[in-house]
């Protein structure tokens, strides 16, 4: 009984961490269908910015995080406007190659600038402790992650499905030329969306740092994990990514409680089963 | 004589949408059957059901005396069925000639042969080139298919179906995008096909339909509205109201 509630609580918390880390990719890969393997690198940039601001400059966490997210978004926008825009029409494999290359360079840069050590984001006292749930305790920071995760999921899903911008975005992805000839400013749409994806990646990097520590290889380490979340959730479905993240978080946590010596076997088996059952993801549109 | 193709009460739903309803008709050797009807009547869906792209919810499809309702697409093709697509469906990067050769290898049952080069079948190569020549595409033999104009790609759709030397040929708006003159000539050329071949054609150009078909089935809202000779259909007031106009 106790184990079950532990699994539920820890699984939910871990799932939300997975979600905030993956949601940016859900935008760039899922929605824009741009195979953005540099997602982890953007997350890393966001995380490092926040770590730098809070630790070296002693900024308040609440100020540093939005700024770090903004900075990542700007980096995304600049890269999109200068280089990545030329890759939308290219083969997916070219996108893979380019974004992997970009990731390598960002890893090497990070390593050269900040060294190989783990970077910590300085948490404010209100988040640093843990919260007593009666029968157990839980890190306070996870509550923030859960709240932000839900908020981001709602905001993103509504933007995509309910607003004019969402229609523009999906139209642009389907047939850019035709979208443009209907008067949709496709360049703006693409650039903004990519920047938003990068910013969300940055947010994930910051908020997820407690569980997925920031170090240069961060950019590649969790790539498979976030790809799995996006795949299981279904291309282009933010809500799907949320469900997938929670499901996978629960499974992973349950396996830690009950059968940890099987490693990530259950995680991947779960993914295989879900995809075999629903090839287009949990929430197929 | 058993019909080449027979549909028995074929049905298909997409969620709440009843797309084909209890459709039955037959196609005999030598038939030139036109399937017409308003947009969204379910004509393409019916062709998908016959060729096995889309499974039927109920009903049966019989091909040359055999129930093929549950067979996969490939098996139906081997039973002598060939089709074209309304929305051009080709391998975009392959040279046009290779595209045709694929069909020929498949017809000859060679597509599992994994050692001899495709160039070592001179008879088939010649046949492919001859076929391209007949469609005026000989000069494009080495061109990548996607580099052809839309109308030329429509012709390849036809050429591929012909290459299979089918017994039953399903043509889904083959003339769309082809200049009218060429379309007319294409159809009269179809007339010269072997007599025992059954052709089912979907087409919205009534000039061509009335010239080509010896029998017409009108589909409306997924059900057969009328069936008969071209003259019957032309005069049928229901068909005029639903489809033909004045």
């Amino acid at each position: 009984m106790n184990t079950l509630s532990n699994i539920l609580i820890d699984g939910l918390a871990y799932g939300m961490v997975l979600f905030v880390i993956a949601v940016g990719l859900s935008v760039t890969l899922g929605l824009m269908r741009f195979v953005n393997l540099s997602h982890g690198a953007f997350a890393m940039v966001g995380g490092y910015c926040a770590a730098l601001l809070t630790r070296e400059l002693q900024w308040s966490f609440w100020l540093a995080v939005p700024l770090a997210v903004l900075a990542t978004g700007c980096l995304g926008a600049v890269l999109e406007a200068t280089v990545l825009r030329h890759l939308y029409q290219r083969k997916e494999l070219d996108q893979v190659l380019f974004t992997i290359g970009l990731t390598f360079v960002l890893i090497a840069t990070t390593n050269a600038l900040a060294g190989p050590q783990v970077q910590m984001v300085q948490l404010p006292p209100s988040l640093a402790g843990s919260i007593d749930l009666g029968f157990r305790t839980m890190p306070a920071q996870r509550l923030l992650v859960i709240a932000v995760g839900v908020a981001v999921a709602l905001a993103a899903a509504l933007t995509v499905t309910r607003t004019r911008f969402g229609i523009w975005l999906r139209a642009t992805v389907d047939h850019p030329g035709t979208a443009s000839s209907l008067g949709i400013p496709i360049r703006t749409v693409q650039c903004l969306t990519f920047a938003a994806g990068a910013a969300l990646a940055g947010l994930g990097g910051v908020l997820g740092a407690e569980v997925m520590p920031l170090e240069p290889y961060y950019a590649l380490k969790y790539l498979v994990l976030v790809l799995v979340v996006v795949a299981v959730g279904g291309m282009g479905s933010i809500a799907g990514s949320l469900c997938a993240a929670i499901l996978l978080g629960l499974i992973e946590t349950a396996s830690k409680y009950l059968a940890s010596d099987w490693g990530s076997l259950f995680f991947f088996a779960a993914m295989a089963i879900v995809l075999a059952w629903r090839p287009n993801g949990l929430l197929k549109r | 004589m058993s019909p080449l193709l027979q549909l028995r009460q074929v049905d298909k739903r997409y969620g709440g949408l009843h797309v084909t309803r209890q459709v039955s008709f037959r196609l005999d050797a030598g038939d030139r059957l036109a399937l017409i009807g308003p947009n969204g009547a379910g004509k393409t869906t019916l062709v998908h059901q016959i060729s096995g792209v889309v499974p039927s919810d109920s009903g049966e499809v019989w091909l040359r005396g055999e129930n093929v309702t549950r067979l996969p697409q490939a098996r139906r093709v081997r039973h002598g069925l060939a089709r074209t697509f309304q929305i051009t469906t080709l391998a975009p990067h392959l040279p046009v000639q290779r595209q045709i050769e694929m069909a020929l290898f498949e017809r000859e049952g060679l597509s599992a042969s994994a050692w001899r080069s495709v160039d070592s079948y001179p008879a088939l190569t010649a046949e492919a080139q001859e076929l391209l020549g007949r469609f005026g595409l000989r000069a494009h033999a080495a061109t990548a298919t996607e580099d052809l104009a839309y109308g030329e790609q429509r012709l390849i759709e036809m050429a591929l179906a012909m290459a299979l030397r089918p017994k039953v040929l399903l043509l889904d708006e083959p003339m769309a995008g082809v200049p009218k003159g060429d379309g007319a000539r294409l159809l009269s050329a179809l007339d010269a096909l072997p007599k025992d071949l059954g052709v089912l054609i979907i087409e919205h150009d009534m000039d061509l339909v009335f010239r080509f078909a010896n029998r017409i089935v009108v589909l409306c809202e997924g059900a057969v509205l009328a069936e008969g000779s071209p003259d019957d259909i032309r005069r049928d007031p229901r068909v005029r109201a639903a489809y033909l106009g004045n």
Partner: protein
Amino acid sequence: MSALMLEVKSVQAGYGPMTVLDGLSFQVARGERLAMIGRNGVGKTTALRAVMGVVPLRGGSILFAGEDVSRLSAHQRAERGLGLVPQTRDVFPSLTVEENLLAGLKRRPKAALSEAYDLFPRLAERRHNGGNQLSGGEQQMLSVARALLGQPRLLLMDEPLEGLAPLIRQELLAAFRHMGQQTGISVVIVEQQVDEALAYAGRAVILDHGAVVHEDDAAKLAKDTDTLERWVGMAVH
């Protein structure tokens, strides 16, 4: 204010190493209906796409309502009043029918949508279906309706009748005529159904190898079987 809606001056365009349009020039007057005909692969589609700005120019210039739009992007041209019905229809598969219609809309949605649904009742029935779930003809309707909702001053239509049932075709051409009288919209129509196109249009140009080879009054051209036979290869009737 220029009396010409569109002026295409010795335009060059192509794909990769290939040149498709080679010195293409033609004009469209305000309120005029121009038919563009020619065999497969002569560059009709490319011409329309170049005017719209979807295919980049390699030479020449395009003037729209007197303004040089050669360097503008497609959406800027759309804002100035150009509209295109692409030959491949390009319905957005991940949008529903209604969202497809809203994509290019600049006005209040309600009135515009009901206009579109009046023209194509079939679309109203399918309004919540995905764009990838439509029949060929329904896609064509959607593509035309979508372009019309943008309220273009010059509408470029690439085989807009293809795949439509005869009844719809007649209705649609009638609607186009009506619209032309009401709003003074100019139209360039590419059509393989040459007789229909010539009956609808006021003037016609024939393309071959990416250039205009013949230009005439549509009604006159319709009777000029020699010319048609030569350039379009049709011996209809």
